[in-house]
């Protein structure tokens, strides 16, 4: 059975393995140079790396490859696994040998699923290794807001480092197989797999991941130095409305989930509009002179200090990275196992 599994997957496996090798060679060639730059440039490292076209491209390609590989595995390894047999009628051949169809499926799920996890794990490991200097610099607060300075705990980058891609690969593969069994046609099953996987990839960071570990909270006193700006609507002065304050978030390597302004008692401040409408910039077309801009801003800061306002951040600190990775990986393994169980149950009813 394992021979047949390998014989049928040979081509798809070789394609992905080839692409991975090319990537690995690229990463291996540029990785040491990046590490050298990191120690040579010290605090200016992220700026220099961002400006280096090769480095920022390698970074982008690495991240996209880890994000895309589980989807590719789900679509090209998972979805056709049963659907193509059903379409070609070869399931009659395969399932009427001396091996029950449950064993046939369990062997294929186990071996190919393992292959998918190993391939994705290896790629993720390579990319994590390559990005290590960047992640260290970001965690040390050297970020400049550019492409390379997203903390590894923040969405998108989180999915492209560490062990969580292995969970995604297992899930995507099981999803593809299940879709193939339920839809029974290869191309629609591929489309369903891709659609559902992308939806999950978007929904999990937004809806699920923030709650996997209880987020931390921190209050930052709003002073002239921490206040970075305002978000508002309407004209400045009376009639204008301040929707929120932008305050410096001083947790490098953290993932900010929410921010709100509270008063000394910890209650949400809802009356920002009346007291702070003056602070909005007058207009975009005619920026105020520096002197004119500074004065009301200082007045605002004084007003904030008088109200003893502080900004309350809900966030995941950098230290939550591995707990989040572990829990999310386990979660995807559990879902993958559930899908595998569903497939084994459904396949007995296929004709």
């Amino acid at each position: 059975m394992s021979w047949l599994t390998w014989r049928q997957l040979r081509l798809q496996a070789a394609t992905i393995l080839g692409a991975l090798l090319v990537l690995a060679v690229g990463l291996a060639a540029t990785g040491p140079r990046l590490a050298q730059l990191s120690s040579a440039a010290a605090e200016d490292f992220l700026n220099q790396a961002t400006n280096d076209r090769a480095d920022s491209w390698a970074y982008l390609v690495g991240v996209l490859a880890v994000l895309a590989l589980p989807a590719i595995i789900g679509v090209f390894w998972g979805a056709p696994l049963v659907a193509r047999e059903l379409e070609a009628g070869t399931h009659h051949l395969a399932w009427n040998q001396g091996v029950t169809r449950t064993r046939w499926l369990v062997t294929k799920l186990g071996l190919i699923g393992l292959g998918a996890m190993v391939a994705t794990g290896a790629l993720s490991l390579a990319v994590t290794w390559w990005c290590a200097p960047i992640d260290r610099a970001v965690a040390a607060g050297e970020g400049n807001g550019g492409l390379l300075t997203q903390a590894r705990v923040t969405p998108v980058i989180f999915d492209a480092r560490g062990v969580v891609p292995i969970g995604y690969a297992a899930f995507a593969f099981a999803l593809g197989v299940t879709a193939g069994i339920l839809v029974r046609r290869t191309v629609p099953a591929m489309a369903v797999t891709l659609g559902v996987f992308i939806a999950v990839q978007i929904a999990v960071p937004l809806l699920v991941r923030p709650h996997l570990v209880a987020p931390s909270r921190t209050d930052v006193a709003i002073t002239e130095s921490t206040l970075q700006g305002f978000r508002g609507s309407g004209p400045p002065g009376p009639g204008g409305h301040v929707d929120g304050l932008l305050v410096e978030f001083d947790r490098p390597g953290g993932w900010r989930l929410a921010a709100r302004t509270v008063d000394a008692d910890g209650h949400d401040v809802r009356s920002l509009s009346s007291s702070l409408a003056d602070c909005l910039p007058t207009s975009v077309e005619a920026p105020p002179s520096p002197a004119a801009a500074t004065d009301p801003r200082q007045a605002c800061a004084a007003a904030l200090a008088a109200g003893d306002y502080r900004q309350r951040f809900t966030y995941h600190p950098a230290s939550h990275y591995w707990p989040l990775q572990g829990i999310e990986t386990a979660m995807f393994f559990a879902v993958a196992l559930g899908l595998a169980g569903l497939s084994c149950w459904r396949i007995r009813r296929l004709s």
Partner: protein
Amino acid sequence: MSALLQARGLGKRYRGRWALANCTLDVPAGRVVGLVGPNGAGKSTLLTMAVGSITPTVGTIEVLGGRPGSGAAQLAKVGFVAQGSPVYTSLSVADHLRLGARLNPGWDDAVARDRIARLGLDPALRAGALSGGQRAQLALTLGIAKRPKLLILDEPVASLDPLARREFLQDLMEAVAEHGLSVVMSSHLISDLERACDHLVVLVASRVAIAGEIEQLLATHHRLTGPRCDPADLPAGLEVLSASHTERQSTLVVRTEVPIRDPAWTATPLNLEDLVLTHMSRRPTEPDARHQLAAVR
């Protein structure tokens, strides 16, 4: 010795339509069974239930004393070549033999290699490059080298030209003789199976129209020609299957266990094709048939 195939009140419904209904069959072991019926009569449904690919909606089916699809032991006893002889187009002939060897505990590699050599198939050739007849032969080789007790073939010759049909069936018969196989195979043409089979099951409109040993069937069916009469006046024990009348003459096809002694009638034997066609052209009129259809509605 357990029966080859035993069905009791077997039925399969797809989306409210009965593909096979109220099928009760007893086929003794050691037979080569022809399953004949027009397209859509339920032949494939019956055969796929016999290999356990689909589960019955109602009733029971036993093959060689076991429930189809009940596990590896049952799979080892029954070989199946599905309609169109599906093979893996991207795998070579040798790969198929290897597949058979890896997946079947009782695989007979010598038989498989011998057959492939005798058929003149290049082991390195991809199965997708084979002709329809060669593909059917490859699928049959997999079925035979598995060394099952029963080989089930669904429309094995439907896509073959007349010469390939004859070769395929001849080859199958040799294998049957050599390995003591039982065979159940279907076709919509009786002429395909006439020479190969000793037992016949005719399916019409999802139901069993007639089943039995071919010799027995031929011995109990007659065409009677005689003066015009009303079929209702015939003696008991005669089942009239079809009747056609001219001004003065009646021609009846009847089934009877007793010899026809009335000198007014001229009895001639029916050939198998006419026998099957007579049954195929009859409408299902048994009361339980109507009952079943009413229940479906």
